């Protein structure tokens, strides 16, 4: 009996190891350098597909798939089909590191569209740099994401721009004088809070208190909001993602009856906010890199809106549009220089002026020397009757 068990156990260990080795062996048969003999162009799309940020992941997936299907229907890139490999980083930095390893080592992937959360992008970029594959983010706004990393690019603004923008909007357009900030304690929330606070101090907007919360762990916001209730604030700024923003909005409006202006960063920009907060979110201002239905949408934006609604029967949001553009720009690159990773990087690094940029739904994308994109501004949306519409007064810059 003991013999049988020990034989069994050895057999299991042998099997496990042999299987792992076999995996390693067959893995070595794919080509290297990003060129795929099967004639496919493969991108990896990494984002929070499950978890509390799943709403973002859905939009990213839909935007990417829309572009890929469009190009495939038109015959592909140089006759080659576009294939998307959707990876889930659950919004957690350690998962992002795992995903980055898997994706960067896969030589058939020539470019990575991702990640979404700034903390995930920051964690994953070292692996992408080590293995040499472009990471093109449609959603990470923290200032350090592209810093020091020649392989990382993004097609939206940075948080120092966004924080400054929001502080100025709060003061000049909304006329607020005393603001309390609730921020998520990760890269994104903290970075945005710091730049908002810095600009607010410069322009004389008084920050009564900045309160941190833990995403997915802090559940009861009443004690937090009660703390700032008696300080005479006229505005609350939520620097974080939509789940907590919804809870804060609900607590402020329903539980405490505070009549303050609610302001949110672009992480709040998601239909989930309205679904979770209901009427408490009415009148909440949210900053966003891109707005639909502004009245002077570009042709590309109108067509995108139409195509998206036809295919998915739901309205797109900013992140779908940014991902659509990211995939489009990457495919334009592949069309010009092929799927070699280094050549793609050289192409991206060369897009430094307006005429070399990519004209997409969200505007003209081109980068500076770090990989940041300064060509697009920020806009403010407001929640009216349960949908996001452009705010009546935008900041004139």
């Amino acid at each position, binding site marked *: *009996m003991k013999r049988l068990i020990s034989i069994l156990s050895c057999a299991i260990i042998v099997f496990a190891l042999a299987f792992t080795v076999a995996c390693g062996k067959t893995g070595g048969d794919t080509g290297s350098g990003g060129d795929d003999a099967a004639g496919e162009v493969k991108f990896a799309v990494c984002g929070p597909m499950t978890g*509390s940020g799943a709403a973002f992941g859905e939009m990213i997936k839909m935007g990417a798939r829309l572009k890929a299907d469009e190009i495939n229907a038109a015959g592909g890139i140089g006759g080659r089909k576009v294939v998307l490999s959707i990876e889930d980083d659950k919004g957690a930095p350690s998962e992002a590191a795992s995903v980055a390893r898997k994706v960067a080592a896969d030589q058939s992937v020539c470019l990575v569209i991702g990640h979404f959360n700034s903390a995930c992008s920051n964690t994953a970029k070292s692996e992408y740099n080590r293995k040499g594959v472009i990471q093109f983010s449609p959603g990470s706004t923290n200032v350090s994401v592209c810093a020091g990393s020649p392989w990382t690019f993004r097609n939206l603004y940075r948080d120092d721009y966004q924080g400054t923008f929001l502080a100025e909007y709060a003061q000049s357009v909304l006329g607020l004088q005393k603001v309390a900030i609730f921020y998520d304690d990760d890269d994104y929330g903290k970075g945005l809070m710091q730049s908002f606070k810095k600009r607010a101090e410069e322009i004389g907007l008084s920050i009564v208190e900045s309160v941190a919360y833990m995403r997915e762990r802090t559940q*009861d*916001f009443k*004690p*937090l909001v*009660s703390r700032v209730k008696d300080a005479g604030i006229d505005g609350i700024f939520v620097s974080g993602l939509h789940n907590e923003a919804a809870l804060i909005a609900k607590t402020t409006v329903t539980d405490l*009856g505070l009549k303050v202006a609610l302001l949110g960063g672009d992480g709040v920009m998601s239909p989930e906010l309205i679904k979770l*907060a209901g009427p408490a979110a009415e009148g909440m201002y949210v900053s966003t890199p891109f707005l639909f239905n502004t009245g002077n949408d570009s042709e590309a934006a109108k067509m995108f809106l139409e195509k998206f609604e036809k295919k998915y029967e739901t309205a797109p949001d900013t992140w779908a549009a940014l991902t659509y553009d990211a995939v489009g720009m990457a495919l334009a690159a592949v069309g010009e220089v092929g799927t070699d990773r280094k050549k793609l990087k050289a192409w991206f690094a060369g897009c430094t002026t307006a005429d070399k940029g990519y004209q997409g739904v969200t505007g003209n994308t081109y980068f500076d020397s770090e990989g940041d994109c300064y060509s697009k501004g920020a806009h403010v949306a407001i929640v009216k009757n349960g949908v996001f519409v452009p705010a009546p007064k935008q900041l004139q810059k």
Partner: protein
Amino acid sequence: MEWLTSLGNAVQNPATYIDAMTLGSIYALIAVGYTMVYGIIKLINFAHGEIIMLGTYIGLLAVNTLNVPIVLAILIAMLACAAIGAILDWNAYLPLRRSLPKAEMLSIIGLVGGAGLLIAYFTTGEAGDNMATAHRIVFGFLAVVLLLLLVSTLADLLGWFGSPRNNVKSDRLAALITAIGMSLCLQTMAHLLWSAKYESFPTSATKIFDSKLIAQTTEGLVFRWNPFGPPLVDAVPILLWKELVTWVAMLVLMFVLLVIVQRTKIGKAMRACALDQQTAWLMGINVNHVIAFTFMIGSAMAAVAGILYSVKVGGNIYPRMGYYPGVIAFAAAVLGGIGNIKGAVLGGLIIGFTEAFGGAVAQQYDKAFAFGLMVIFILFRPWGILGQKEAKRA
């Protein structure tokens, strides 16, 4: 000494007391479930947190798909959770106390088959996306049956089934680990079925709960006894209906529970089983039925607690939501004296107050205060406030 001023502010602010009472009531409801189960079978029911979560999700489903008012949803959730509690006991804990071969085979097929079906149904990926639903179900079921056949043949060959369990201590460890396993299973099941996106009760349903009971207007305090009326505007809420409902629910349910335990026959049976199981068997009490009934009551109360908690916080329904309230309520049960229902209520209220006032001092550490209190109590007075020192048995 910034924390001292925060504490001072909190002590003077009536909102902290209201919060403490509300949280305390919720924890008391959950703690009672833990304490009753421990009193009868000496098991820390880790899966209780998941029952809270399931109750909340069922309430949410009732409100969203059946469009029932929230009070009815709470009743439905209570009934459903009572059933789930009994099924949990039957599937997970009963087989450890007693061997019922036929029932066991059924329950194993149910558990493993259900798991396989869930996994098969939610499998994605290129090949996975194209599978038709019917194919998925058949695929999952066949895979599971094949696996079961393989594993049971192997186990039979090795003579693994029916190994005798001699040591009482290892039985308790086995039960505890089974509880942990069940907790994992239930969490994952909820995650697969409803995904980890945050949900919340729709505002249309919680309107009566969110309306103000006592509010401060420019003319002074206003008492609104009619929650169905038009909403007050420009009034700073002091007490909301949902908070009052939570307190009342806790008091009513505790009263009902104490009546059941002290005055009814089944209550007498519960007390007898908690005292001495073997003698209870001898007296003709079907101990297993009594245990199942205990689970049912505890689970029903947990369902109420879950829904009220979600309404208080304003949302926050996700598969892991039951873990923290469960663990803290367990700390509360231990604090008050585990095995003692009044102790559970007392412990729940104390922990509620600790969390509310501790949270006013250092918000991120509010749960740490609750855990710290529990640890200190266990180190110096493990039998809790209302418990009695037990003689150590070998």
